[in-house]
């Protein structure tokens, strides 16, 4: 019985992670401009990857493998948002501006972000 619950939990994690990863990359293809694409892939990827790793961890039971998976998850959790930040920063400072619908609403967030960079 416990084994069944553990398995079900692991499958759920793997399934949810796969769906998130897929959605993220579909966004990478479908969305209209760079910042939107980054938004799609940067956010879903971190959660999706960690969910898949969690699913694998539950499958592995408690062993060295689990610890390695935990470390991979931790490092991905650090590096993936950092690289997204770095790319966004590079794009923004080089003058790429987000695609926005309205001229008025564009100014403020753009300048605010520029100050931080």
């Amino acid at each position, binding site marked *: 019985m416990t084994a069944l619950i553990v398995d079900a939990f692991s499958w759920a994690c793997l399934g949810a992670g796969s769906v998130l990863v897929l959605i993220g990359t579909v966004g990478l293809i479908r969305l209209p401009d760079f910042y939107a694409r980054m938004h799609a892939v940067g956010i879903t990827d971190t959660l999706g990857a960690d969910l898949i790793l969690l699913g694998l961890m539950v499958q592995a039971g408690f062993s060295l493998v689990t610890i390695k998976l935990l470390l991979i998850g931790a490092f991905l959790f650090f590096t993936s948002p950092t690289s997204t*930040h*770095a790319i966004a920063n590079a794009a923004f400072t080089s003058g790429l501006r987000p695609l926005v619908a309205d001229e008025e609403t564009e100014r403020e967030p753009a300048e605010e972000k520029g100050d931080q*960079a």
Partner: protein
Amino acid sequence: MTMEFVINMSLFVFLGLTAFAILKLRALFAVVMLSSVFSLVSAGLFVLLDAVDVAFTEAAVGAGISTVLLLVTLSLTARREKAPHRAHAIPLAVVFLTGLALVYGTLDMPHFGDPNAPAQTHVAPKYINDTEREVGMPNIVTAVLASYRGFDTLGEVTVIFTAGIAVLLLLGASIREPDGVRIQTMDHHLVLRVVTKVLIGPILLFALYVQFHGDYGPGGGFQAGVIFAAAFIIYALVFGLENARRAVPGQAVRILLACGVLLYGGVGLISFLFGENYLNYSVLGATQVAGQHLGVLLVEFGVGLTVSAVMVSTFYAFAGQNPPISDEDW
């Protein structure tokens, strides 16, 4: 059509697509990004084909070093390839004919995965069956690399050493101090600085693990050397080349460059002096297995030293060049 074969097939198709895109695109920056993807996919393929040590090496090299080297070269040369203006017919014909000849050659080859292929029946069973008794380490690849074929590996390390020396000769080992003020780059990238600081420790620790755990799992001197170098390169990228040189002076790196090869050769010489064959480590310890263990450990350490020193000094030499100042916008 097993699952493994389907994955194998899709990864090969990815590789083909990536290679074709590299051929087609003229923006060299995109070519660099694609070549890093090419290396990622090939590492995945190596894992699938049971070559975990090879995948490890490809990962260590492809994840950072080669991308960084290509980017430095781009910053010193042009960023766009000019349109080719010559006849394509002859190269295409030559390539096509060569490809056909090679495909004709494969028709006689033993099929993929055939356990009775000639490659599988001669020396491989000896390595697989005798490693445990003769060298006494679980990772057969490390045993073959450092012990059975130690001479071969010594040659490879010498090649790497020579290539490193040649790069230093071409680009100048000691960097001329340019006149002007060094600007502290990356100073305001707080997030990057903090994350890099957090990560450098684990990277170095991981390199040590790879270096000394190579007898038991995938790893060894070649991989560890590249990972060590990656840690220093990332430090130099974020905190400046000047600071990196203060932490690890170029002079020290060049001394280590030679030390690694000397250590490797020296271990061979010691076994020579004990009256055994060159690079036969069995005499180094009380028992054969203990001697082999010690010998492999020392030799792998020498490999790690040379590889990391070559990578770091190559990076120093490339990054120390002053890029031409251009207003070219892209």
